[in-house]
């Protein structure tokens, strides 16, 4: 195989995808070919630089938009009053016993035998 053929194997070599036989042949060629060694060095460096690209992180606020859409699709709208907890307060009040209030008229104590 010529140099060009070996250079097409650079990725397979880096990824560990060469068979033992191919690997031995590849290494034998590199030992005797300075040009391919230099090319592999540059190729490998470029691949290592790619690894420096940071993984971008999604803003967590995205969940709010997704949740709203999903609720809308599922017909479970988030009402304003629900969002500020009014319904929860009402539910708590329902659990309390009804207030007991006795209204009556007071006429005072009758006084007998006076006057």
């Amino acid at each position, binding site marked *: 195989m010529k140099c060009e053929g070996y250079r097409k194997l650079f990725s397979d070599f880096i990824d560990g995808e060469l068979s033992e036989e191919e690997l031995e042949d590849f290494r034998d060629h590199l030992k005797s070919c300075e040009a391919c060694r230099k090319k592999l060095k540059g190729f490998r460096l*470029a691949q290592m630089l790619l690894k420096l690209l940071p993984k*971008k992180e999604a803003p967590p606020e995205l969940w709010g938009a997704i949740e709203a859409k999903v609720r809308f699709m599922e017909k479970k709208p988030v009402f304003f009053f629900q969002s500020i907890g009014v319904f929860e307060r009402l539910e708590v009040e329902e659990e309390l016993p009804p207030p007991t209030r006795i209204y009556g008229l007071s006429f005072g104590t009758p006084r007998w035998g006076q006057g």
Partner: protein
Amino acid sequence: MVKGISQELVERCREGDLSSFEKLFYLLKDDIYNVAFRVLGNHQDAEDITQETFIRIWLNLRNFRMESSFRTWVYRITVNLCYDLMEKRRRISLAEEPVESFKELSTDENPLLLLTERELKEKIEEVFNVIPPESRLILTLREIEELPYKEIAEILNCSVGAAKMRAHRARVEFKKLISKYLEDDKDEM
């Protein structure tokens, strides 16, 4: 299942449990966002694609067959949405204005050796954004997400051999451009 995504969690999402879906969001959001950002090159598009991917997951989860990889399925949705957006943009740009010429990088700048770490990362980003989106996609899946070729092939709907070949070509493209900043290796592959 991967990264804490249990079959039970997927099952609960499938049943319509929104709190489980929120857990799924936090487990997957960065993988999706990163792929979209690397392919499309900006935060706004990446946010839109991430949002739309989760909506598609929610809508189609009932049709997902458990025997295939859940992560692969999610990546496929993201990749397809990215392709759809690029195709839409391409049609608009063809209709409105001539295609932009390939962005040339200036070569009279400092070699990588003379850059600070921050400058180096910026330079890598700059070069990465010049290579075609298809190359950016496969390099993102392989070099950043570190997926095996078998999974990449499933995501891209191609053979493992084709995925390897695409990755090699993409690496060569990146290497050619970054070589301009490598003092002792400026020639072609």
